[in-house]
């Protein structure tokens, strides 16, 4: 039997490791099916900071770690560093 309730996921990429720093990237996955978000669908972020998402009721469920920089690879850049996953649990009938 399918569980009642559905999860909405918000991923915010911030300018540094502080939750109150600026949002530079974002993604939304809506398990309720009410919206279908996708790449390139918004040019302005849903929140100015990670803290603003908390104030709006999003629950933080994961934050990226701060890792030391390997010797010889200090200047190498790849993926965004400050990734925060939030959720909302939406009750369904």
């Amino acid at each position, binding site marked *: 039997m399918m569980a009642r309730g559905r999860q909405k996921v918000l991923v915010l990429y911030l300018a540094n490791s502080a939750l109150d720093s600026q949002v530079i*990237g974002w993604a939304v996955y809506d398990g309720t099916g009410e919206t279908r978000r996708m790449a390139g669908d918004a040019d302005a972020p849903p929140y100015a900071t990670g803290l603003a998402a908390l104030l709006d009721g999003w629950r933080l469920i994961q934050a990226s770690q701060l890792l030391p920089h390997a010797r010889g690879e200090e200047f190498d850049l790849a*993926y*965004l560093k400050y990734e925060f996953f939030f959720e909302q649990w939406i009750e369904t009938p």
Partner: protein
Amino acid sequence: MTGTPLLSDEQLASFVARGFLRFDAAVPDEINAAFLVEAGEAPEAAPGRKLRATYGELLAGAAIPEIAPGTPLYDAYPEGSAVRRLLDLPLVRGALRSLLGAAPVFDHHFLHVTFPPRYHQGGGGENVSQHTHQDSTIDPRLAFDVQVMYYPHAVTRQMGGTRFVPGTHLRKVSEVALGRYQNLRGQQHMVCEAGTLLFLHHGIWHGGGVNVSDRTRTMFKIRIHASGSQQRQWNRVERPASEFQRPIFLVKAPRPPDSVAAILMAPEPWFEQDTGRLEFINRIRLWRYLTADPNFDADYWMTRLEPHDEAQGVV
């Protein structure tokens, strides 16, 4: 090369910093029309008809040849074909010469067609944008390939357009591993006139936008690499090193944004505060490579980190 306008220092600096150069309505209408005829039209959507079959039929019927990777670029397309005429435009010749040197080589090409909703409804698929990605695979080189994106007809926002994120090209990522990044501050969408060209560094993060218009959108991409030196191939002006060592931090007035130093050191809206500085360092390293000047620096980023005399090593 008489009649071949080479890129300027400012254009090269912009390419190094942002990973693209855009030329609006650069291709004449006559070539655009010829290309669209050669590309052909997709068969109309029909209930139960899968998009893959439609695309396959379009590619099979297009008068664009299969070409082996490694073919010299100027031997790749038949004389008189629309793509050959495009590649022979002075602006295109000059830009490719400036970025890739004297004898560019064909890697691959593709006819990207983005279909409007009725094709997805007919085939039972979902009409969504392409995940953001970097083409090919992890590429640790300092040298770069160029991807020419050609828009043979006008592109509206409704038609999706190529989405790309200026300044992401120096990050070493693995193709669509970054697909989770739906939106980034500063992303751009190609809304353009017919005949627009986008020259991209191979590493730039990009993806096809979702087409919610009522017609197909066509973009033709060619990936090209160098066969020799990429150094000092553009219309380079010798500049004193002092021009790039501007006063930093305590600055009393905005500085002109159009100097080569300012172009190289301009941040992007998506920059993280700390790694944005590493982006500057990586741009300096690429400029050193292209200018063959191992001592080049801007805004003291590298000078601060390197030995100031031969007796002093990095400890």
